[in-house]
């Protein structure tokens, strides 16, 4: 079978299985968040924490839950890294430096999973499983909880109540993330991913050389890394490492896992607002953008522009033989557009224009299909913007899902879409102006600038992938990128929850002949258009200086 046919089957199988799974999974997730019953394990958790899972929260209370839980998480993860040498199973690793520990704590709590360290020589067993892997679960659950709160804002009327944060968090972990992760982790082990708490194991090769084989509870972390769109690799090479991603099938599985919740949540949304068609209009917009990205990057990587790739006869630099160009391209687009940020090939060595597409995927705001939860609420904000633009065109007060999009709602949506572009552009510009960007570059010229732009884009949008030639482990970048990750995660959540509260208080307005039908293909087209125009206007100048300059040179 030729590579093109194989790639077509690979992506077809992916879309096919996602289509099959999104319905039961989306419906199940809706049932989880609408259920009035508590499992025994959950009751035990609520009792030991002293939380009342049935107490309804208004948006400030819900937000307080998110922020306090996340703040405590940052602090705990920071301390764990600082004392890891004193804990058992340390593998002899030193404590992480303060700036890097802050960066890593911010990174994993904000679901970014940017890594300025090398897992195999930095993080102990305890830090990995009780620190990093825990945040893989809970940061994903926090994202989904906030998305669910926004959906309740649309679904409910004449109340300010958005549900209970503790219940949403615990249910998401217990009923959704853990079951999926156990299954995925066992499949990964069956395919060769490792799962042990051993020491670094030294063997002597047939040529008489010594080689160190890394240990680790890899499969259990790999599963939630993908399912929770986290992306922080157990090892520096991330999903390119054969112990994380042993063969062509696990590669397919990992792409599937990182897409499955984001592409199923619109169904959950549709269920909860009482019209699955509304969910399909949203998922269609996500799918169109994702697929366009897949086509562009796959085509570019096979065409392999760039002197070195032309000379080599293909774009295999920074790619694994078992994955090749096609599957690596699909992984790259899926990971950047879901806010996952794991990599099975290094983006820095992708062609200039491919790198531009990957950057753009993040700059869209991680909404196609975006991270677990964050993708859905990001896309719903864009839907509000699209409705607003359509309202301006016909001179009607915009409405969405029976709720008026008034001045307060628009202000909150506008604040939301200003946060990450401000962080990206100011962060990258500041790094360049202070000379901190230049000193961290591996590559030269336009591509060097792309490395800096990519770093601040990835951090602010909570993606976590990198043009990894960028030397991120400096005090300046650890601190600044850490701040970008925290602000890029939690400021938008403030606006989303405030918006949810405001929507939930409204009384519903009836559908009339003049209502924009937001479940129709026309709206999907309008939504895609609005996304591209807003992102394009914001980021085109920066893209022109980096990937476009390199790609068109």
């Amino acid at each position: 079978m030729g590579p093109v046919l194989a790639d077509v089957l690979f992506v077809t199988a992916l879309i096919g299985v996602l289509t099959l799974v999104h319905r039961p999974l989306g419906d199940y997730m809706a049932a989880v968040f609408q259920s009035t019953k508590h499992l025994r394990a959950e009751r035990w958790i609520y009792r030991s924490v002293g939380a009342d899972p049935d107490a309804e929260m208004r948006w400030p209370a819900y937000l307080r839950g998110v922020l306090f839980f996340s703040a405590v998480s940052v602090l705990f993860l920071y301390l764990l890294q600082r004392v890891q040498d004193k804990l058992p199973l340390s593998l002899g690793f030193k404590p992480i430096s303060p700036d890097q520990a802050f960066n890593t704590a911010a990174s994993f709590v904000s679901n970014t999973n940017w890594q300025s360290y090398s897992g195999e020589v930095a993080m102990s067993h305890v830090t990995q499983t009780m620190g990093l892997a825990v945040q893989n679960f809970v940061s994903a659950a926090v994202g989904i909880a906030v998305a669910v709160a926004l959906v309740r804002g649309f679904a409910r009327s004449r109340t300010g109540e958005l549900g209970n944060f503790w219940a949403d968090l615990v249910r998401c972990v217990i009923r959704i993330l853990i079951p999926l992760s156990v299954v995925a982790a066992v499949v990964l082990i069956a395919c060769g991913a490792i799962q042990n708490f051993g020491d670094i194991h030294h063997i002597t090769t047939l040529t008489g050389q010594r080689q160190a084989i890394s240990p680790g509870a890899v499969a259990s972390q790999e599963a939630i890394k993908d399912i929770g769109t986290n992306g922080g690799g157990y090892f520096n090479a991330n999903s390119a490492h054969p112990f994380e991603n042993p063969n062509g099938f696990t590669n397919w599985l990992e792409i599937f896992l990182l897409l499955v919740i984001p592409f199923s949540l619109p169904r959950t949304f549709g269920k909860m607002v009482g019209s699955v068609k509304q969910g399909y209009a949203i998922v269609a917009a996500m799918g169109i953008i994702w697929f366009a990205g897949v086509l562009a990057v796959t085509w570019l990587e096979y065409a392999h522009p760039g002197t070195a790739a032309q000379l080599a006869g293909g774009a295999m630099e920074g790619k694994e033989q078992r994955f090749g160009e096609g599957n690596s391209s699909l992984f790259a687009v899926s990971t950047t557009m879901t806010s996952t940020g794991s990599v099975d090939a290094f983006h820095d060595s992708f062609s200039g224009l491919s790198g531009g597409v990957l950057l753009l995927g993040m700059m869209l705001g991680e909404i196609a299909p975006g991270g677990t939860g964050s993708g859905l609420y990001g896309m719903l904000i864009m839907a509000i913007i699209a409705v607003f633009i359509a309202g301006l065109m016909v001179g009607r007060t915009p409405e969405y899902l029976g709720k008026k999009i008034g001045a307060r709602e628009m202000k909150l949506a506008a604040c939301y879409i200003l946060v990450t572009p401000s962080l990206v552009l100011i962060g990258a510009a500041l790094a360049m102006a202070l000379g901190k960007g230049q000193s961290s570059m591996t590559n030269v010229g336009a591509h060097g600038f792309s490395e800096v732009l990519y770093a601040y884009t990835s951090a602010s949008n909570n993606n976590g992938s990198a043009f990894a030639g960028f030397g991120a482990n400096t005090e300046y970048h650890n601190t600044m990128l850490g701040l970008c990750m925290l602000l890029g995660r939690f400021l938008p959540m403030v606006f989303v929850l405030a918006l949810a509260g405001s929507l939930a208080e409204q009384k519903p307005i009836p559908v009339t002949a003049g209502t924009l039908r937001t479940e129709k293909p026309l709206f999907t087209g309008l939504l895609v258009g609005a996304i591209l125009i807003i992102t394009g206007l914001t980021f085109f100048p920066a893209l022109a200086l980096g990937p476009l300059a390199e790609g068109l040179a």
Partner: protein
Amino acid sequence: MNNSFVNFGRMTWAASRMLLVLTVVTGIVYPLLVTGIGQTAFRHKANGSIVEVDGKEAGSSLIGQSWNIKGTDKPDPKWFQPRPSNSDYDPLATGSNQLSASNPKLVKLVRDAKERVAEFNGVPQSEVPKDAVTGSASAIDPDISPKYADIQVGRVAKANGLPAAQVRKLVKDHTDGRVIGFMGEPRVNVLELNIALKGLVAKR
């Protein structure tokens, strides 16, 4: 003022307890459960797919190795050679060199690799495949393309005093197609191929 301070403390305490409980569930129970299943059902794989030769551990079939002459940076003509590695196949330093296709440094690396591989194997440069001159992502890629294995057959056969046809058959037997026919790329696992080669040489 006093009231909000109490609230702050109460929320912090509640959040801390929640984190603690979820750490027990997702950070202790979950990984131990998965480890238990993995170590029971897939012990060999869960521990790194270690392969033994003559009763001695010779590496992991998933982790690529250097096949240079010991203590040098020269490839040993007796063995099939892997792809270029950014860390000389050190699993404690995974990751690629991160050079872009437009970078003159990478152009030079590729050009040099092409010359070296062509000369080492006695084939024209036009026959050197892309994986032979580009560094992998992990720096410990266990595989090469069937084509790269193919151009090494003549050299390996000569260095070991084996008929080329026999070595070529060995490569064919150790070539894996795409998983389920369409996932990933065809490949040859270098360690497994070289272990089989060692067996062939011993029987000679």
